[in-house]
């Protein structure tokens, strides 16, 4: 095999990394390099330095250390049975790419994952060498996200947490049975144990000892995971129930949903469908409602008998259409919880309503200026000068929001 140059390796190993949805660089500790002895800063919210034509944010240098892998996960381009071209970065190459990209303001930092080579421990050790070099030799203070190898020794994962802002382990598929079917070498119980270890270790770091000192900072931006959507037969209700459990049990910062997308050299086991992007989008919206709007999984997935989300209207609107008896809601009197359930009102709009209505009674135009989407909300609210009349219960209300059926054409 001809030796690959740096550019060829970068092409192969970023191509292999693009199926990981996360590119977040937010929510870590504040750091800077004002002392002149290091490079980089993190200031709360992350920065998207570019957008690819798939509309996704490019915040981190997201690469695999190597795409050699001894496992055979059916959905993955790197599985041992695929004929994809293989490559491997040296420690030095990853460090130099990260630093040189960072200095030119292309990225916020590094998201490093890897195929499994030789053994899980060996793979994790090599990844740690990269993180350690960045932090201790280059004095890099930007963002580092490491994808941990679930079967690696707990000490290695613990060390990773000292260098990284975020750790992630992908649960990959929504149910244990699907994992067994499509990722035969992976063990869902081991994945959960690794997440539990990280959570426990993070809890310890957050506690103050008797002297009042905190432990060493440990994954300040927390852990996240990813589930592939549409490769197996799981319903949205199953997926969201799994997410709720993950958020609860391991205090995950994010669960990412990744629409199963065609890969080069696919296996015959999985059909090459068009990635279900609309479904992925609805899942993110539902996930948001679960975490910030006080909805329960059952409420969100009750709208349809098959346990899937409505693809035509967003989940909050779908819920409101199903529960019209609760509407219209008076924006000048309703509780915060109820305001949050109004379609077209975001958390910010609700905050503004609450602070302004202390001083005066709100009108339709006021809501517009506060950023509410009244096209959606108007059927569900009353205001000082607004009442929806029969709109709330009108039979064609849903049709106003759902896209018109596609025109049929003769062929």
């Amino acid at each position, binding site marked *: 095999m001809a030796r690959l140059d*740096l*550019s060829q390796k*970068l*092409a192969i190993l*970023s191509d292999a990394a*693009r*199926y990981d949805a996360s590119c977040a660089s937010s929510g870590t500790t504040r750091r*800077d*390099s*004002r*002392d*002149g*002895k*290091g*490079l980089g*800063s993190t*200031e709360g919210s992350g*920065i*998207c*330095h*570019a*957008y*690819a*034509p*798939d*509309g996704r944010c490019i915040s981190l*240098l*997201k690469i695999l250390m190597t795409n050699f892998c*001894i496992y*055979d996960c059916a959905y993955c381009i790197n599985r*041992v*049975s695929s*004929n994809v071209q293989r490559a491997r970065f040296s420690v030095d190459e990853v460090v130099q*790419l990260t630093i*040189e*990209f960072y*200095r*030119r*303001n*292309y990225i916020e930092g590094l998201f490093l994952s890897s195929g499994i080579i030789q053994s899980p421990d060996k793979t994790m050790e090599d990844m740690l060498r990269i993180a350690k070099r960045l932090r201790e030799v280059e004095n890099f203070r930007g963002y580092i996200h490491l994808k941990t190898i679930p079967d690696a020794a707990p000490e290695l994962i613990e060390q990773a947490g000292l260098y990284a802002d975020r750790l992630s382990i992908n649960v990959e598929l929504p149910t244990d049975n699907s994992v067994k079917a499509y990722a035969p070498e992976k063990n869902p119980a081991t994945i959960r144990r690794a997440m539990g270890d990280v959570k426990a270790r993070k809890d310890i770091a957050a506690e103050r000892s008797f002297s009042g000192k905190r432990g060493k900072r440990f994954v300040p931006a927390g852990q996240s995971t990813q589930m592939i959507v549409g490769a197996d037969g799981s319903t949205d209700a199953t997926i969201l129930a799994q997410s709720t459990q993950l958020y609860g049990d391991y205090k995950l910062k994010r669960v990412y949903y990744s*629409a199963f*997308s*065609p*890969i*080069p*050299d*696919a296996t015959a086991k999985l059909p*090459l469908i068009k*990635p279900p*992007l609309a479904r992925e989008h609805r899942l993110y919206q539902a996930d948001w409602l679960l975490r910030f709007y006080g909805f329960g999984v059952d409420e969100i997935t009750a709208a349809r008998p098959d346990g899937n989300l409505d693809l035509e209207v967003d989940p909050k609107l779908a819920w409101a259409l199903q529960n019209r008896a609760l509407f219209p809601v008076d924006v000048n009197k309703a509780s915060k919880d109820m305001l949050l359930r109004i379609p077209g009102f975001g958390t910010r709009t609700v905050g*503004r309503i609450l602070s*302004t209505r*202390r*001083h*005066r009674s*709100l*009108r339709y135009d006021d*809501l517009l*200026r*506060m950023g509410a989407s009244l096209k959606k909300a108007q059927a569900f609210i009353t205001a000082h000068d607004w009442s929806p009349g029969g709109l709330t219960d009108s039979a064609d209300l849903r049709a106003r929001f759902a896209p018109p059926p596609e025109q049929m054409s003769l062929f």
Partner: protein
Amino acid sequence: MYTVPLPRIGTDIAWRDAAKRLIGAGVSPDEVLWNFDTEMDTLFATATPLPPISRRIKAPQSFVEMANWVVWHKDPQRFARLYALLWRLRHQPGLMQDRADPDLAKLRQMEKGVHRCKHKMKAFVRFRDLRQGGERRSFAAWFEPTHHTIEPTAPFFARRFADMDWMIATPDVTAQFVDGNLSFHPGQPKPDLPEDATEALWGTYFCNIFNPARLKVSAMTSEMPKKYWKNLPEAQHIQGLIAGAEAKVQEMRDTAPTVPPERAAKIQRQLRGDPSTED
């Protein structure tokens, strides 16, 4: 009538100082003309000296913070609008909480515009290596912001890139960071920066992290509007990626599943701990 000249560098401090004096002396908004960087015809610029700082008027902290952003907006009316709101605040102290007041809403919208511009500058500035040798490395960039945003944004770059020297040139104002000191200078036309080989690697990354099966051009352009493309080295690849996406996906679909490479079976047997395969 007062005409207040406001400089291009240090606009925020100059506006605040003038507003303090005028409001303290009870000068109403229609008696003030704000003249940014002598944009106005100097014919009207009768230099009435500003009133001295007499009594201190209290303004809500939220107003002060908002004003610190709005002064960098490109709208020539920004100073007058700010002063008019400050004037109203004297008798309507709760005004800042009224998120639906049209005057305040307009200023909040301008504030948001400056925030967004600052955010885009943090994201889209692209440095080139000047390869000058010496102890500290040096980099330079050319950027064209929508508003006058370089001054409030430069400290971000100073916190982040403190171990190197850098310059960000804009048509308006140039920020320079040398040996740990940040300074501002008059703007300039686009400088001739040396080629930087790392841009090609960045282009390679941009092309390969893109997933052609998920093409969604509008989502990209809403966050990375075309007006920024000319100064983004990766943007030269966008048209080609979009044009080739469909064919790439089709190719994946058309390729029949291949036979696994020979080593696959061997590795898998080893993984399962089958002793007969040890060689």
